[in-house]
């Protein structure tokens, strides 16, 4: 066995790295490093550069304008953009809707939407979750009533990430009201400027606005906006959920956070000495580093299997669980490392251009906020509890 990358793969990594160093504005990566709020434009700059390079659709086959990369290349690409502190690629259009349209969309839909995604003409949002249906998507209540050539949509979606920037939203809606849960659901594309749509911000516990509620009141949606067949939306939604996710463990995020943790622990003092010299605290870091090291190999094993065409089974679920635990633990130790320096909360500090003196060291500001924010990762995208149910059912026959 040998876990080193091939020369070809190393060259590819170098190409990504060099491209990023040339095209990613320093001011932008600085904002990301400082956890400052990103504007719509900040995301778009990076995504437009990716478009120009032909790398935006990194999960698509070549024939549709994608990269055609295998799982290892995707993994390298993702590692490098995270290491470079680039903004994240907003996944809703390019990584989520795109693959669904490629697999299930009509020719007309493909011809219209895919180029627009490739050129960043539409900002897509995802309309899955509802107030009464978190991890249990099958019990959703938003309805789309057939009115001949259009549907009338009523209901409410929630946790819509960056929905306030969106031009369009893909939604799961109930088209057959009498069907059982999971049945009678359709996959619908909706313009956000349709009359009757209202976006309300949700402020999260860290005081930030990233997610939204989206309310639909008698929203008219043309019938051609349905993807695939009526009442079969659940199949398409599931396709997305099982879609190969090489990055699910968030290894590069945890690696960079662990690195940060070591730096902070060197600077934080306990009894006048660097905290990292405290045997108990450094032991916690060491065991976390070991967990992460093992998880990186576990992740690579899965990436490699995917590159060889094997479908990821319970590995995705296990990596999701461990990935979130490791990442949360890193933010916890960062918070603990600060001691009382974790207390101050200056929301204005995360605005672009803020250049007052921080309270305490410059790295302290975002840390407690990040700790609380990161509680979400074990909840969304199928909570860790749901992942455990999936594994138990699929792998144990229990």
């Amino acid at each position, binding site marked *: 066995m040998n876990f080193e990358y091939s020369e070809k793969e190393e060259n590819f990594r170098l190409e990504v790295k060099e491209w990023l160093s040339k095209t990613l504005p320093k001011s932008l990566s600085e904002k990301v490093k400082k956890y400052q709020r990103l504007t719509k434009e900040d995301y778009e700059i990076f995504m437009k550069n990716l478009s120009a390079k032909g790398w935006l659709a990194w999960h698509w086959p070549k024939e549709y304008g994608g990269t055609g990369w295998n799982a290892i290349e995707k993994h390298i690409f993702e590692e490098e953009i995270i290491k470079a502190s680039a903004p994240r690629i907003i996944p809703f259009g390019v990584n989520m809707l795109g693959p669904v349209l490629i697999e299930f969309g009509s020719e007309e839909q493909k011809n219209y939407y895919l180029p627009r995604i490739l050129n960043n003409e539409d900002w897509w949002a995802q309309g899955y979750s509802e107030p009464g249906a978190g991890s*249990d998507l099958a019990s959703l209540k938003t309805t789309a009533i057939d009115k001949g050539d259009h549907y009338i949509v009523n209901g409410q979606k929630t946790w819509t990430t960056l929905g306030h920037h969106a031009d369009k939203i893909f939604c799961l809606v109930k088209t057959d009201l009498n069907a059982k849960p999971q049945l009678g659901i359709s996959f619908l594309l909706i313009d956000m400027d349709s009359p009757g749509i209202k976006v309300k911000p949700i402020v999260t*516990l860290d005081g930030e606005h990233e997610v939204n509620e989206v309310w639909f009141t008698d929203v008219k949606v043309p019938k051609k906006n349905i993807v695939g067949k009526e009442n079969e939306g659940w199949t398409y939604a599931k396709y997305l959920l099982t879609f190969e996710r090489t990055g699910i463990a968030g290894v590069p995020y945890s690696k960079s956070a662990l690195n940060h943790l070591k730096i902070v622990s060197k600077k*934080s*003092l306990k009894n006048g000495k660097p905290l990292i010299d405290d045997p108990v*605290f450094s032991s916690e870091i060491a065991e976390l580093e070991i967990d992460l090291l093992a998880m990186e190999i576990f992740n690579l094993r899965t990436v490699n299997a995917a590159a060889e065409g094997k479908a990821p089974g319970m590995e995705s679920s296990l990596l999701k669980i461990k990935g979130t635990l490791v990442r949360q633990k890193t933010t916890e130790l960062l918070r*603990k490392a600060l001691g009382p320096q974790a207390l*101050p909360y200056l929301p204005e500090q995360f605005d672009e251009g803020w250049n007052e003196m921080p309270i305490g060291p410059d790295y302290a500001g975002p840390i407690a*906020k990040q700790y609380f924010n990161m*509680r979400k990762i074990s909840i969304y995208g199928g909570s860790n509890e749901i992942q455990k149910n999936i594994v138990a059912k699929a792998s144990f026959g229990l």
Partner: protein
Amino acid sequence: MDFSLSEERKMLKETVARFFESNYKNINKRSENVYLPEGFCKTFWKDSAELGIISALVSPEFGGLGGDGDDISIIFELIGKSLCVEPFLASGVLSSTVLSSVSKINIDLINEVVEGNLLIAFAHTEMNNRYEDSFIETNASLRGRKWCLNGTKSFVINGDTANKVIVSARIDGNVNDKAGIGLFLVDNNQITNRSYNTIDGYRAAELIFDNSNAELIAKDNEALSCIIKANSAGALALSSEALGIMETCFNLTLDYLKTRNQFGKTIGSFQSIQHRMVDMMLEIEQVKSAVMLASSTYQSDAKTRDKNISAAKNLVGRVGKLVAEETIQLHGGIAMTWEYSASHYAKRLIMIDHLMGDSDYHRDRFKLLSVS
């Protein structure tokens, strides 16, 4: 053995509970108070004083009506339940503990505090002082016959609106020496401050002393033992507050589990969730027990007092993390929102571990004190 509260304390508990309930009913009220100019509600504070809540934190010897460990713990458990941000910790516990522990007692000053007319903050923490008692860089020197302070105190809870501040400063010796420490009383007009909110909703400030005039109230051994006592009193108060928060978190979660449906059943009907609730309940009972022990021995010798308080605060740090994280996880998304109270309880619970010594600090202190 006596595990029950005296009749007087039961009455106190009921009165204070009712008062908090009617004044701090929902989380929006609290959020409003957080953004008032003082970072808390002056009227509420004044009303609390009139009701005798501050008085209950001070011993009859100094004009109060309580001041025992059990009093601190009763009141702060209720503070935890209502999540109130009034300066009970700064003025009611930390400063009044110092003022009533020094040898030169200023009874008038304590009276003013008890009546809520005077707000006094306790400024000991510095940027490089994690939670240590004697790690002090702020400097005190004599100019003629007047003391004058130079340096910066950090994370001073309610340090911006306090009328006076009790400040620890180094008169002599190296930064971490146990000797050479003084405690000073400083008027707020002698201090430049930069104030901000903390992530758990309190108001704190950096206090800058630039040749600030100061009155010496204790020095050397006396000063250090006052600092230690104040920090222990604060840790007991915060442990009790944390207990109140944990109980609230548990109840909020239980209510949610009973009503929220997923896959056609209440979430609470899932066995794996039930077992996690039992784990939480059990640990909260442990915390309750540790807090009871700490409060009942608060009047003992310093070593017993500090050992039991460190045991409680260490456990609070560990269980607090469990309860805060489980409360959010078992709720799901809703507990991630600002609108819902659980997120604020969770934040305060976590941040209590960053005040008056975290679980690591108190574990180490317990270790030293438990060697007999």
